[in-house]
């Protein structure tokens, strides 16, 4: 198992309700796992917990058989460099070029010699890799544009190219198509499938649409009010179960 989550609990500061309540699941390597649930069910929080952006209130997370819930500093950075993340609102660095944004996927490599990273230029082979990644996502001609001049779909493709450069073993995609039109959405999901098949990345993705879930994700898990309601093949997700997941 590449990821093993056991009794994961989380509560935001100054809140009484637990956002996640004893969530347990495991993810085999090279799999595509879709996560569904209504708004506020804890999908995004779970992604953030896995990546160490949120502190857990209980439970354990094992990544490649290593417990990571208590990691800090350079240990956390080492684990994070093997875990990519794509955000709903793209989270690209504004005013920077497309190329720079893609190259930022490599910054994890600089983790222990940051001074070298600060004062040296980007290595030529990284730049070449970035060009190839941008070509892969169909943005070869926008290399030197500022990211603000790109459409939503294009920005998300830049984020995917950043992940291609990072080459993580696990990719966490937090509602990557929430603000995109259907054509761009399909394109993004097809790239995620490509990352899974070509680069062997395990993909964990929050999905809002059941249509996309059924098309691109063979397995899924469902959350409701912070509790795990279902884990298994997407094809076996019954209509009654879906109603239960989404009813308030």
């Amino acid at each position, binding site marked *: 198992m590449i990821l093993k989550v056991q009794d994961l609990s989380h509560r935001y500061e*100054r*809140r*009484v*309700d637990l956002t996640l309540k004893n969530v347990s699941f495991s993810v085999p390597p090279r799999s595509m796992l879709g996560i569904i649930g209504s708004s506020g069910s804890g999908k995004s929080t779970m992604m953030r917990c896995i*990546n160490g*952006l949120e502190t857990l209130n209980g439970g354990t997370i094992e990544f490649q058989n290593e417990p990571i819930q208590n990691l800090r500093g350079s240990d956390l*950075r*080492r*684990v*994070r*460099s*093997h*875990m*990519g*993340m794509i*955000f709903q*609102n*793209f*989270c*690209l*660095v*504004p*005013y*920077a070029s497309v190329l*720079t944004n893609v190259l*930022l*996927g*490599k*910054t*994890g490599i*600089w*983790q*222990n010699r*940051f*001074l070298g*990273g*600060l004062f040296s230029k980007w290595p030529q082979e990284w730049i070449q890799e970035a060009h190839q990644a941008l070509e892969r996502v169909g943005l070869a001609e926008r290399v030197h544009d500022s990211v603000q001049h790109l459409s939503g779909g294009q920005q998300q493709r830049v*984020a995917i190219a*950043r992940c291609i450069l*990072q080459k993580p073993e696990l990719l*966490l995609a937090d509602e990557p198509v929430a603000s995109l039109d259907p054509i761009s959405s399909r394109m993004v999901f097809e790239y995620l499938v490509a990352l899974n098949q070509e680069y062997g990345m395990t993909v964990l993705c929050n999905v809002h649409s059941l249509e996309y879930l059924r098309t691109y994700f063979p397995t899924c898990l469902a959350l409701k009010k912070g509790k795990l309601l279902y884990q298994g093949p997407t094809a076996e997700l019954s209509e009654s179960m879906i109603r239960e997941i989404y009813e308030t």
Partner: protein
Amino acid sequence: MKPDLKTFRRGMKLLAFRWIYWVVQGLIILKIWNHFSTYWSVPVWNTTYILILSSIVGITLHFTQKQFSYFLGTLIHVKNRNYWKWEDCKWEFYIGFLNICTASLLSLKLEIFRIFSIQGLNILGNISHQLLCGVPVVSHLMSLGSQCDLTPWSYYIFTLDKLFESIACAFMGTLLAFPIAFILAFFAATNLTQHSKALRLFCGVLRFVMNVVRSIEVLVWGIMISVWVGIGPFAGMVALMIHTIASLTKQFAEAIENIPNGPIEALQTTGAHPLIVLVYGVIPQVWISYVSFTVYRWDINLRMSTVVGIVGGGGIGGLLFQETGMVHWTKVGSLTFLICIAVWLLDTFSSRLRRAIN
């Protein structure tokens, strides 16, 4: 339901805040009272009485409203909230606001009839006439030469040197303050320092020191520095620099606090070192505001450099002070005219620069 310590502590904090609030309000009410009752002002023992009374009001309000539950530490389990609700305290806020407005207006001692004093208007008219004589083109067009001595052209050439001194003082003051404020701002931004206790403490101390430095006027800094390094443009430059460091640190830190957290988190998730996150995630988002703030600060410093000159900071301000002391109103008019022209030119330049950057 079990009371918990965290909520109890929060309840106590709210109680303390409310108590201080009502004590301050009590003192303000006392000030208003003293203003109206000239013949029966409240003696010192009554101040103590007011303090006690306002404490009672504050604490009673605290316990008669929903805050009582915070005190017991149980509301958190009941209502799923542990913050202060606007409905609970809005009337206290309205009364306090009205109180402060009334006390402020009264302390200004508004005496509107003085504006229409004939004697005052006459003196103002005389000085304005002489000031106008100092403005070259206007005085020639209005043929004011017969009524007062016009400033000779050679005087303008002499003052240009002093004007340049002022501009240089503002420029160097801003330029030298920039790198220092640039570094300090990272430690003064709460969003970058929240993860470490030591950094949080340093941030608090730094903000406090910067607030103190900023609240001391440039004029006072000018006096202090000219005592230290001697009268001259160098003292003016250092005074401006110190004030600029404090102001820019605050503005830069606020710029950092306002950036979206997304790009920073995106970089963190790649495993990047915090310094790399700073260089590639924070600086690209703030540098435009940094340049804009710095140019604006230079603009302010240029105007301030004339004021600093008055207290020994050199430049055109010193000359202005000298001529005012000798009641040479025509020359004062000429100097003011020159300052206006310089400020207008540099203001136009800096606003165009800022627009181009944005």
